[in-house]
């Protein structure tokens, strides 16, 4: 079947099997491998993307169900070559280790800050409670999201190129 959707601002149209999961459509068909596949049961959240401005678990949604909708993935977080504050926050506060859950965590974090610009620690924990990180113990993820909240509009951004330098 033919499915058409907007992915990170670009319209795409592909011929797919009707049963194709959104996560596999993004990864295998479009090559957007930043979104990961983790559990099949909607428990882990490494597959979280936005569909029409809401975070969803793309392993539990057919690509066909996203037809005509707007999908945003981790590859669409960066705008005009500039990192989203959430991405910077995760680097600054060591909010990632293996990086496998990170794209999903960041998509949820971006949504949270869009709807609650100054979340408490408890609100952040609640927001990411449908997602699993096996590496960080979550404290640094909470700090990362708080960092993003406090740097939301700052323009003097440390450029990503210097991220590998000692600070």
């Amino acid at each position: 079947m033919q499915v058409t959707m907007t992915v990170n601002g670009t319209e795409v149209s592909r011929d797919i099997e009707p049963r194709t999961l959104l996560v596999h459509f993004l990864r295998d068909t479009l090559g957007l491998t930043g979104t990961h596949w983790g559990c099949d049961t909607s428990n882990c959240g490494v597959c979280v993307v936005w569909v029409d401005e809401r975070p969803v678990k793309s392993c539990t949604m057919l690509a066909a169900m996203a037809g005509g909708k707007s999908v945003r993935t981790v590859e669409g977080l960066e705008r005009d070559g500039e990192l989203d504050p959430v991405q910077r926050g995760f680097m600054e506060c060591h909010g990632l280790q293996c990086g496998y859950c990170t794209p999903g965590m960041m998509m949820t974090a971006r949504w949270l800050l869009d709807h609650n610009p100054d979340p408490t620690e408890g609100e952040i924990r609640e927001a990411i409670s449908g997602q699993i990180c096996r590496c960080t113990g979550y404290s640094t993820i909470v700090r990362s999201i708080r960092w993003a909240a406090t740097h939301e509009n700052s323009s003097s951004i440390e450029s990503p190129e210097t991220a590998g330098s000692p600070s």
Partner: protein
Amino acid sequence: MTATPETAADPRDRRQTEFEDNDQKPIGFGRMLRKEDPRLIRGRGRFVDDVQLPGMLHLAILRAPVAHARIISVDTSAAEAHPKVRLVVTGAMLQEKGLAWMPTLSNDVQSVLATDKVRFQGQEVAFVVAEDRYSARDALELIDVEYEELTPVVDARRALDPSMPVIRDDLEGKTDNHIFDWETGDAAATEAAFAKADVVVTEDIVYPRVHPAPMETHAAVADFDRVEEKLTLWSTSQAPHAHRTLYAIVAGLPEHKIRVIAPDIGGGFGGKVPIYPGYVCAIVGSILLGVPVKWAEDRAENLTSGSFARDYIMRGEIAATKDGKILAIRTNVLADHGAFNGQAAPTKYPVGFFGVFTGSYDIEAAYAKVTAVYTNKAPGGVAYACSFRITEAVHLVERLVTSLALEMGIDQAEIRLRNFIRPEQFPYETKTGWVYDSGNYEETMRESMRIAGYEELLAEREEKRARGELMGIGVSFFTEAVGAGPRRKMDILGLGMADGCELRIHPTGKAVVRLSVKTQGQGHETTFAQIVSEEIGIPPADIEVVHGDTDNTPFGLGTYGSRSTPVSGAAAALVARKVRDKAQIIASGMLEVSVDDLEWEKGSFHVKGDPSASVTIQDIAMRAHGAGDLPDGLEGGLEAQICYNPENLTYPNGAYICVVDVDKGTGEVKVRRFIAVDDCGTRINPMIIEGQIHGGLVDGIGMALMEIIEFDEWGNCLGGSFMDYLIPTALECPDWETGFTVTPSPHHPIGAKGVGESATVGSPPAIVNAVVDALYPLGIRNVDMPMTPSRVWDAIQGHPRPPI
């Protein structure tokens, strides 16, 4: 960069000082953002399942639906007729090629695909290669396997009953389910110490079967080039070099024609040390078809068929004088290794490093006996961030010490302080023969108590108890043995546990360092750049770290058992010193002085007494490759390679304090605070160290409160999805409180000890001790993990039950 407001304002946390230190220290050790993050936060990491090659096909594995059965027949005709299927392979077909069995990490054998019997639910029976991943799965449904079901052996306690069927009838002459008996220590001396003791406490402690469950499951892409006769294998491997050698031995491919690439790995925790049948299937598929073949398991396959850990049923005894001086510790263990002995440990250590069960205490005698058995469960015994069974050992001793404290009415911290090995006793040889390198246990314990506000906590608990509330404080103190070898003692399947490192300085003074170890999230690209930077004075940003590719890195045994920094980190420091020695000779020529007249100051040599006469490492690098003469007898270039064989293990340690509140009405345990003070010797990147500790603490919460792989009486795995195998989310975890002491390892070139598994080892007993402490007024002496609300509630009602 400055500290975030949250961290800077937190007086309990000493990270703040490290931020400030690091601002003045752009080269070498200190807090530094990770070099791997820019790609990972953009979704541009490259994990195995991200690899897409032209013409690549997809492989899926048919797995046994029952735990124990004889295979009567396998009919693949319908699957073969599927229009998108290109290959169907059964165990019988592999047997013809001599590939049906492969060695495990403990010199046992394991089926790649079952031939005679299936021995656990989820075991590999056949595989299909098809044009896409969905069609491969469809075709599995078309394979018809006829089984004759056999009685499964599920309860390890009954595995040795003569009435039980023999699981491993493939092993010649095997008439029971016994794997090995192992003992350590001095039974007679221990008995004598128990005989004179004033107090003896006995506990039955079960460390249930758990699973590493990394967020990325196991996967492989095999690409066999028929013209070059070369196999390239992308795989989720923590030990690419060891895997390459094993593939050469198992598959008969020449080793120089195998390239193993471990790209970004989505967590390992020990689970990605073994070779899984799926990797071998992918290789076979690619060789037979001549095109790339991808295998990526799903979560159910991951949880049911691979990499279990623990499963130790322990009886522990501790003997002490009336003053609370510990005399001896004794234990008897029944170890469930599943259907194939997949224990990941050095050859001469069938129980891993369980021998450190004497803990951090100066005692008179100790003895342990471990009996290992086969059961109809997936192969067990891989490390889950446990430093080769140290998790079990530490849990045993730390539960016993707290039981003794509670029994004697002595405070949990106090009894540890009375019995610690003292700083002046190091190097300290334990009663089971382990030589601890260094430690200042009292200082570490007191730092933890300071951060916790220990006295105030005790007072708060008394107030709450008086009101009938169940608050508990748990203490644990662990000593780990990490960084295996030395190679004279330690090998995996005959491969000595040492690690190579190669460093090249390019003409412009930039560098590339090549490692034999492989990060799965630990941040090697950052830490190892910092180690080299510290030694050679080149900024970490100018040092590229190459790892996870056997064609481009020196041989070594890989990353597990917290061995990267203790072994490979030492190699990185020493190879940099070797390069620096050559740089010094070149500098002497450039400055026209003798080598002995030069002084090294991070990044440059200068003439003693004349700092203005100096050359930087970058100047030297250009000279090494440039025009003009070098000192007599010196070759051009600035590079070196070494293979580091550690002299001893390193012994990181730490003091953990956990505060819990238990809901009397529901049995729910809430971990309110967790204080972890670690001593991992010299600290390379405090941010990464803290991350490693945090990650281990969440493992501890998981194992203590939620995680267990259970089986029903037929051997059905009851933990086959994340709906059944529960992993902590952000809601179950407190905001961790960390601190540190620094007692460098005397034999490690930079004094570092390794930290990757410390918190996984140390935290579970602290949590259990806290819950037992909370419930002690109710007469409860032990609660086994996982301390789920129902199990805790049962204990409160007076019916405690072990998980298995």
